[in-house]
């Protein structure tokens, strides 16, 4: 391939013919890819397109099956994480591994604290000093002195990035879905970091499912589909907009992501609350959820929305206020009570709150309503199998095999199972928290459609830190700011921008 050799002369990173397969699955096929110094490149693609695999090869976590990697023109073998780091590639994985009990600066310099091997001296003063310098170099503000366990998500992300940047001679920084757990405001901080990194001539590979971010942060983007590179374009020249990019990612015309809105008028109130207060989280919250419509609540992480959802679900007990279900006052002491009364929470953190990853689809989907598949406490396995298979069809699970453990599904498909589990619970009120975090655009449309369908027979509340989602999906919207409702309106009467502003600033229009 003469072409790639020519490019390699001025590219800081050049890949040619990279391939990787996992058993029968071809994750990457003959990938050519190059990157200039100081370039921010977004990697786009639906779940399973091969982005993470490429990144893991570059970080030395996976071994490539074939192809070659050049850094600043020199051919390198990235056989291990340390080899990759030595070659100047620093990566921040989608879920960075950090040590919660150590402080920020201890994490940053973990493994590079000093000389003398494991019996070497631990000089905390010197580490602090180095950390201060590092932070100053990129113009950041973060308290690196607290244990990671007490940090916010963006602070942790910053620590992970700083850990990567702390290497000498770093040429390429890889960020795999860094924003998936961040709030809007935190996102801006992160983009600031990316800009600072870029300014120092470091190339950045940036993976995201949030297409709007591409225009904010990237210079160029590469679209992956089925383990191949479909196209690489410059953001400035391409003229492509979100919808067109999405079409390229899916390889088909993108149907509207959000389903049609419902008729709002005259629906029966199922869940109502007044003056709900949980100290330290939210105060004086009043809202109504009606059958037949979707209530979308937008709020940043840390705005108290998560606690609100868990209070409605019986996890937390409110200090004051009332909750009424179908006109009757209720007070739940546990999710069990809530589920029995007809409220179901589809939690935001599917891996820890939503699923038993070791178990199969049937186990997971039926878990919240075992009474539907038991007779006198005895399980009816055939029934469970049939029900879960029907649900798998309904949510278009892929692969459609109810015997597979959840750990074998991609994030988007795992999320579909969480939704299926909710469907099986047959509640009157559904609360979805961050229903599409890390889910690709195809799966997302399916999940939205399912939520809409659900809203025909139940009251649905969707809580999201994505204003676009909260607005696009809902019939009525609310914004939540620092534990208080800052906006409440019918969706058609307001705009995405208003909702976003109310959630970010608390200024009610």
């Amino acid at each position, binding site marked *: 391939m003469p072409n790639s050799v020519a490019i390699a002369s001025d590219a800081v990173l050049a890949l040619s013919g990279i391939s990787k397969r996992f058993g029968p699955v071809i994750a990457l096929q003959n990938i050519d890819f190059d990157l200039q110094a100081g370039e921010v490149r977004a990697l786009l693609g639906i779940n399973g397109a091969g982005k993470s695999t490429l990144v893991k090869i570059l970080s030395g976590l996976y071994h490539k099956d074939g192809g070659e990697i050049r850094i600043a023109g020199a051919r390198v073998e990235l056989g291990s994480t340390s080899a990759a780091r030595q070659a100047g590639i620093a990566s921040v994985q989608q879920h960075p591994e950090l040590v*919660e009990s150590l402080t920020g600066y201890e994490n940053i310099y973990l493994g590079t604290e000093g000389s003398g091997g494991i019996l070497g001296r631990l000089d905390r003063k010197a580490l602090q000093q180095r950390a201060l310098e590092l*932070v100053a170099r990129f113009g950041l503000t973060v308290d*690196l002195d607290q244990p990671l366990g007490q940090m916010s998500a963006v602070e942790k992300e910053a620590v992970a990035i700083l850990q990567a940047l702390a290497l000498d001679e770093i040429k390429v920084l890889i960020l795999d879905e860094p924003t998936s757990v961040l709030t809007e405001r935190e996102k801006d901080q992160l983009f600031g970091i990316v800009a600072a990194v870029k300014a120092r001539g470091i190339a950045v590979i940036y993976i995201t499912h949030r297409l709007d971010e591409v225009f904010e942060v990237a210079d160029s983007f590469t679209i992956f589909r089925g383990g191949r590179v479909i196209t690489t374009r410059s953001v400035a020249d391409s003229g492509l907009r979100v919808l067109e990019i999405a079409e390229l990612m899916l390889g088909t015309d993108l149907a509207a992501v959000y389903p049609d809105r419902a008729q709002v008028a005259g629906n029966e109130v199922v869940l109502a609350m007044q003056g709900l207060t949980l100290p330290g989280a939210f105060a004086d919250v009043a809202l109504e959820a009606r059958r037949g419509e979707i209530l979308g609540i937008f709020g940043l992480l840390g705005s108290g929305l998560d606690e609100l959802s868990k209070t409605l679900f019986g996890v937390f007990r409110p200090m004051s206020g009332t909750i009424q279900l179908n006109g009757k006052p209720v007070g739940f002491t546990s999710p069990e009570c809530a589920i029995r009364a007809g409220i179901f929470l589809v939690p935001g953190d599917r891996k820890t709150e939503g699923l038993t990853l070791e178990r199969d689809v049937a186990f997971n989907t039926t878990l919240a309503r075992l009474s539907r598949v038991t007779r006198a406490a005895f399980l009816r396995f055939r029934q469970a199998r049939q029900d879960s298979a029907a649900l798998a069809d309904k949510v278009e699970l892929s692969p459609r095999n109810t015997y597979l453990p959840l750990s074998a599904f991609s994030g988007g498909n795992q999320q579909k199972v969480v939704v299926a589990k909710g469907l099986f619970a047959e509640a009157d009120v559904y609360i979805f928290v961050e229903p599409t975090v890390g889910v690709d655009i195809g799966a997302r449309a399916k999940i939205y459609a399912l939520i809409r369908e659900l809203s025909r027979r139940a009251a649905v509340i969707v809580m999201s830190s994505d204003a676009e989602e909260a607005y696009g999906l809902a019939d009525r919207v609310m914004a939540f700011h620092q534990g208080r409702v800052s906006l409440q309106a019918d969706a058609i009467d307001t705009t995405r921008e208003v909702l976003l502003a109310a959630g970010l600033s608390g200024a009610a229009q």
Partner: protein
Amino acid sequence: MTMRTHSMASMGAGLPKLHTLLRYGLFFVLVALFIGFALAHPIFSTWGNVASMWRTASIAGLMFIGLTWVIASGEMDVSFMEVAALSGMVFAFQLQAGASPAAAVGVAMLCGAGIGVVNGLLVGYLAFPSLIVTIATAGLARSFAAILGGGQPIYINDSGVVGHFADAVVWGMPIIGIAVVLVYLLGWFVQERRLFGHYLFAMADNRRAMEQVGVPCKPIVFSLFVISACGSALAGIILASSLDSGQPMIGNSFFLDGLTAVLLGATVIRFGKPNIIGTAIGVCILAIMVNGLALLGMPNFMREIFKGVLLLIGVAIAVTAAPKSKSI
């Protein structure tokens, strides 16, 4: 950007005053116990008795020092008692067979360390679950120890230098006691001032994170098990010479006492994490209890009950006082 001065233990950085008090709670228990027994029995606080308790505590302390770190690193070692028994038996066996004391100590240490090497290889390098592995190697050690003596103790006529070392006294203080205090000080230094200590605590938290940045976790785990076994082996040898016999079963009391001392010790200083000073305090409390209750003529089972209650209260305080999130 703010940087507060860093406190000794990172976990404790944000804890309020009450916790600082609780952090030294076990130390107060030790002092209170000592004063209590001293008031209850005139002999208790005499120097001779203190020296005798010191000697007892030293042997246990030697056996539990490595265990402390193993548990602090998130692993488990339940083979320490059997390692001590095996080394003691090998030591006695060698002496009986006519070996010189030095050779006997050497062989006995090798055997004990050998169990540690097996533990370390299986857990550190092959990622076997440590509790199960050490249950198994404990069984192996127990069998070997018993096989050596045909299931019976092996008696020692003269343990030579080792015996002298175990009994020797300078300025009224047992030499072995002084030696073990020095070992603990060294251990404290390594734990607090060297990367080894830093890493071993972090390992309990997220080993994958450390491996990704190239911290040699496997060698660390390996050496933790070897250190644990060496300490136990040495303790076993000293024990054998002080009992003039290798005992295939040193007595189950060491097993529960070891875990109790380490876990009780975890309620101090590093608050929730086993650490060397905590273990030292725990060992002292247990030694004081054996001695004091014997002097007072209390039945042995009272000690078990008292020990259990103390441990339960200690852990309950440590857990309820620690900052926590909503528990399910």
